[in-house]
């Protein structure tokens, strides 16, 4: 795979993967109601 292919694939995976991990960590391990 060319460098641009790797960049596109890994950027997409990193973006959705980190969003997924962040959201589920917040859901599973809590956090307070932030809205005031």
């Amino acid at each position, binding site marked *: 795979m060319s460098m641009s292919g790797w960049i596109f694939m890994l950027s*997409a995976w990193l973006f959705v993967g980190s969003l997924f991990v962040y959201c589920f960590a917040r*859901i599973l391990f809590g956090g307070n109601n932030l809205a005031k």
Partner: protein
Amino acid sequence: MAQNGNGGREHWGTRIGLVLAMAGNAIGIGNFLRFPGQAAANGGGAFLIPYFIALIFMAIPLMWLEWAQGRYGGVRGHGTTPGMFHLMWPHRLSKYLGVLGIFIPLVILIYYSYLASWTIGYSIYMVTDQLPKVQQQGITKEDLSALARGEFSEQLLAGLPIQRADVEAFIEQGNSSPAMTAFLEAIGVKSEQIPQLSREQRVEKLEAAIIKEKVVKPFDEARKRYAGGITAEGQPAGEILQVPTFTYVVFLGVFLFSLWVLARGVSGGIELLAKVGMPLLFVLAVMMVIRVLTLGHPVSESLGPLNGLAFLWEPKWYVERDGKEVFVLQDPKVWLAAVGQVFFTLSLGMGAIQCYASYLREKDDVALTGLSTTSANEFAEVVLGGSIAIPAAVTFFGIGATQLIASQGTFYLGFASLPPVFEFMPLGQVLGALWFFLLFIAAITSVMALAQPFVAFLEDEYGFSRGKAVATLAAVWLPSTHLCIFLSGSLDVMDFWAGTFFPPLFALFEIILLMWIFGGEKIWSELLQGAQIRPWRFFYYSAKYIAPLILLFVLGFWTWLNVIEPILQGTALQQGVEGQGVGWTVWVTRLYLIALFIGLALMVRVAFKRKFREATL
């Protein structure tokens, strides 16, 4: 069953249960089959640019609005959009606009439940070894290896309308005999394009045509037999499909199972199914990804899963349109495909998100919960969905054949092309069964979300018990699906209207109602109530100004492509708006959909009159 004291509406039992149920709503067959096909056909990695722009500027804000609207309506006793729209815009028309929020999921349920039954039917087929075998055609892995080297074995050419002399003259001198020209035209290569093909392209096109004809065709015919499109003797079935008993019985099983889950209620049925099904889906999908990515090079050193990933993800900046090379980001069709995929995958503009969100409590978070379900869907689509079907197909069939397979549509990729791939894998029968079971979980959790709005409508607006509401749904659902099962083209007509046209239109109504009539600040405050993350203000402006423009573009360009262009070209009367012709089966389906919409609108009218009468007594 968790209930509150306000009108007896149910609530979700746990937050993770809600997230999984809502993710189950969004994650469907399309994540694993439609996305890779769309990406491959529309610029590969370059497709991700319009895809993520549509996700960030349109889908995420719209998703949050639907969640906020759902909770707002649910707290006030309305789980479906007629009641929600009326609460937010007390005009006599608003409830009728909201009818679309029951009509769309009900129509999709009618055909999607049948498609869900295909997945479990195919899983049973794999376990019981009912599908054809490539090796019955005399084709072995060695033949595929030879094909990957550009060699055409006797077994591959046997029974084809082309002879070895045609192949040699075509490959070496570029001379296409009438038989070769006709053979290539069957895969979409126009005769005038043939002289311009390089030797490498000639080999690739011929390989693709042979894979399609010799390897995939028996499975495509098996798929058509399963759906009744061709008879057991291989003859076209005509307008009334000849559905095998097995297909019908499996559908009835899926139908009864769905009713059983629905009758158990939101927390006791739908949530429980999601809590079991969604983790299982992710485990199965990860297992399939690992299996595909560790396939190595079973056919040729030049073909492996990495080539498949490269095929999918390398940006192709120019796509071919009508014989011309067009820069991918300047092609409206690529943008339409990207926006459509984002819409379809997140189940936006259907009324299903609002219905599930209506079972939240007033202070429950919707911002983080909504974003979590979006992230789960995107992970399943972009990471897992992109790493199974296409890399597996490329590993065994090569780039040219996979490109052809991907262009033939979702079900061709999943049901006709992957079974032969599994045949060449160790433990392929088990893997094939798991693959179709994975698709079944993805589909059945979406079926629940599509069924719930009609049930909620009957419970909330007519005061029906759960059992009575589910029985009424069954009385509408079962006969309606018979149209899809037995009438040729009926399923596609329903998909065209409920799955493609109405969701963006309904989403446009929603945005105008929420951001411009009800008030952008009011709905944004509703979203922030109880929120565990604070969405950037950027999304507010995006929801108010950018998302409607994107939706207008989609609807306008869609109308151009499907209505105006066919009229100008004079093909509208032959192909019909839906591309399914204008035969009687198409008309029966169209009339049925109109009658269903009118029926639902009348039910909404009666319900509101009753409530008004009760309130004034």
